[in-house]
């Protein structure tokens, strides 16, 4: 199963596939070997405004603005050491996901299939189990209900249909939406900074930051069947959560990073007819060529900057800002803790709103709920798009007969499938409230994250040529990630016998 044929000099720069006998290939696993192609040049400089920025902005979600400030209110800032570990681990995971995607132009799902096909099917099933629930949108819609009075089920259903229409008409609408959302996100970051500059103080930051280094702190109350599973889920929600890291490989490919430049893009349903044929496998570059390796290092620098500044930095910034405000509110209205402890889940959202209101007046409380609604919509846009990309990628390559539909139609099929199911659940389903859906998602996400750490170790160490495999330290960190996520999951099951509190 291990790779054997070392890649050699590129056979073609034009993308025209020469006769099979003349083609040099990289054999990875038992699936079709990857032809050798040229690696494109890395972007010339380290820029903040790459395509990934938009994705990262969508990744800042409920964990940062809702779950962690809530835990800090309840258990104190010391609990944030778990957040630090969660986000740092994910920055490393992101770099390793990018390693495979940029080297091959294949998704991590394809890489998993190269190792052992049932692993890929496992993720196919887990994605459906976890992400058909419209959790993110329903939480945002509940916040919208508090501002406007529109019942959350109505706005959630309308939002779902809008998401479907948006991505079906994508070629026309998406650039406009990207520009509008990018401006809104820029304003959100600027406003968050100004608010933090005005109402925060050094002591809040000191307690928030020193809280991140209280390794091992775990109050007795957190070790309860009610709270432990939620804390585990919140660690999974620190930064890009659940399978979002795996889908990131598809976004990297679509943005043309590394060997992704050789793979066509997914199109909206309205433009599916213009789609060209998706190759049946990815490509590899010549790792024995010094020039190619130099370009590879350029791509690694590019993605490292993204991981450190954007994933790690922005996630930290937003959470610290929200936490500082929540602490200020906790000082002003001591009943905030009581509201959360009472067991009424929605009290958490209200308490967060109160936190902002007490720091800056009732309007600011409304602004906070607006942020939650916007973040909920953003997260839904990102998650549904990513889910459909991942499932259509796996289905296209590995479901017999699926190729005749093309990736874009499969994408539309999964997108509308998840939307219609989501609407059915919202109207008649077992969902008893937004918070409940969110907690289930959070916990199941943890399992996927432990599993993909194992997959990363297998794929990057067995399916890539030796010169571009990860170093020992990286492997140790990813291995620790697998033990950390899966260990906490099993501990929760064994110790408390519960999946979600």
């Amino acid at each position, binding site marked *: 199963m291990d790779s054997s044929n070392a890649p050699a000099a590129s056979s073609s720069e034009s993308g025209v596939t020469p006769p099979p006998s003349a083609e040099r290939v990289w054999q990875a696993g038992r699936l079709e070997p990857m032809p050798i192609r040229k690696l494109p040049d890395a972007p010339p400089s380290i820029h903040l405004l790459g395509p990934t920025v938009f994705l990262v902005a969508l990744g800042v979600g409920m964990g940062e603005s809702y779950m962690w400030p809530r835990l800090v209110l309840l258990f104190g800032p010391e609990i944030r050491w778990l957040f630090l570990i969660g986000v740092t681990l994910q920055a490393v995971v992101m770099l390793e996901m990018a390693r495979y995607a940029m080297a091959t132009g294949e998704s991590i799902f394809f890489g998993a299939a190269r190792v052992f096909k049932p692993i890929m099917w496992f993720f196919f099933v887990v994605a459906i189990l976890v992400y058909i629930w419209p959790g993110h949108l329903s939480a945002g819609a509940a916040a919208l209900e508090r501002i406007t009075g529109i019942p959350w089920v109505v706005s959630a259903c309308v939002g779902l249909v809008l998401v479907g229409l948006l991505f079906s008409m994508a070629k026309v609408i998406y650039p406009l939406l990207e520009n509008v959302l990018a401006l809104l996100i820029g304003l959100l970051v600027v406003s968050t900074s100004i608010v933090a500059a005005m109402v925060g103080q050094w002591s809040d930051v000191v307690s928030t930051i020193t809280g991140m280094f209280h390794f091992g702190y775990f109050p007795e109350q957190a070790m309860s069947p009610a709270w432990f599973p939620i804390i585990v889920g919140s660690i999974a929600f620190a930064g890009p959560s659940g399978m979002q890291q795996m889908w990131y490989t598809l976004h990297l490919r679509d943005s043309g990073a590394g060997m992704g430049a050789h793979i066509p893009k997914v199109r909206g349903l309205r433009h599916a007819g213009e789609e*060209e044929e998706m190759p049946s496998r990815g490509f590899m570059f010549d790792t024995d060529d010094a020039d190619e390796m130099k370009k590879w290092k350029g791509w690694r620098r590019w993605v490292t900057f993204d991981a450190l500044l954007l994933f790690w930095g922005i996630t930290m910034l937003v959470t610290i800002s929200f936490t500082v405000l929540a602490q200020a509110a906790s000082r002003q209205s001591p009943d905030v803790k009581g509201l959360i402890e009472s067991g009424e889940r929605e009290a958490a959202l209200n308490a967060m709103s109160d936190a902002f209101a007490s720091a800056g007046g009732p309007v600011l409380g409304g602004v906070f709920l607006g942020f939650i609604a916007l973040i909920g919509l953003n997260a839904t846009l990102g998650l549904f798009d990513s889910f459909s990309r991942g499932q259509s990628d796996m289905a296209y390559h590995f479901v017999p007969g699926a190729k005749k539909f093309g990736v874009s139609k499969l994408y539309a099929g999964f997108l509308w499938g998840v939307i219609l199911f989501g609407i059915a659940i919202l109207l008649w389903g077992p969902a008893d409230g937004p918070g409940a859906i969110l907690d289930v998602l959070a916990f199941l996400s943890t399992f996927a994250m432990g599993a993909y750490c194992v997959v990363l170790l297998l794929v990057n160490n067995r399916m890539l040529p030796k010169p571009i495999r990860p170093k020992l330290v990286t492997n140790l960190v990813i291995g620790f990630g697998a033990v950390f996520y899966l260990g906490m999951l099993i501990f929760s099951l064994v110790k408390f016998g519960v999946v979600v509190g």
Partner: protein
Amino acid sequence: MRRLGELAVPGAVVGMAAGFVAGGLALVVGQPPGWAMVTALTFGVPLALLGGLYGVLVGSGKVRIGVFAPAALFWFVGFPPARLAHEVLSGLVLGGVAGWPSDLVGFLAYQAMVSLGWAIGFLWLHERIAPGWLRRVRAGNPRAAELFERYVVHAAALAEARERRRSRHPSRAGRT
């Protein structure tokens, strides 16, 4: 001078807008409109001046367009004094006494930390506003035309990378 001023406009607009965010915040916490205006001006004007200076540095080629590290360094140094100016001046105007913070070092350290977040948002907005503004004023301003040209070259480099891909796949027009 006018030519330099035109280069400074996008950064100054973002800085002033931030001042109005601060003023809006003062308004919602119940301060009278006059006080909110003082907050907006005492914070917004220093930020606008610094934002404008950043634009001039970009225009003179001392700072590369769109790159984060110089912007972060610039605001790491510039943001704390701007916030201090706001604190001192608003106290002076509203209460007749300069409102020096009790823990000056802690205050400046905190603002320096916040400045990194501010730098991300500032650069994000600046890079979205600047090209459109420069396109409008380039006819009568050679410096603006030159800077606009740099944005075009940068955008062309990114587009060229996409185009290279398309040339291998001629039927594709791209979605994102």
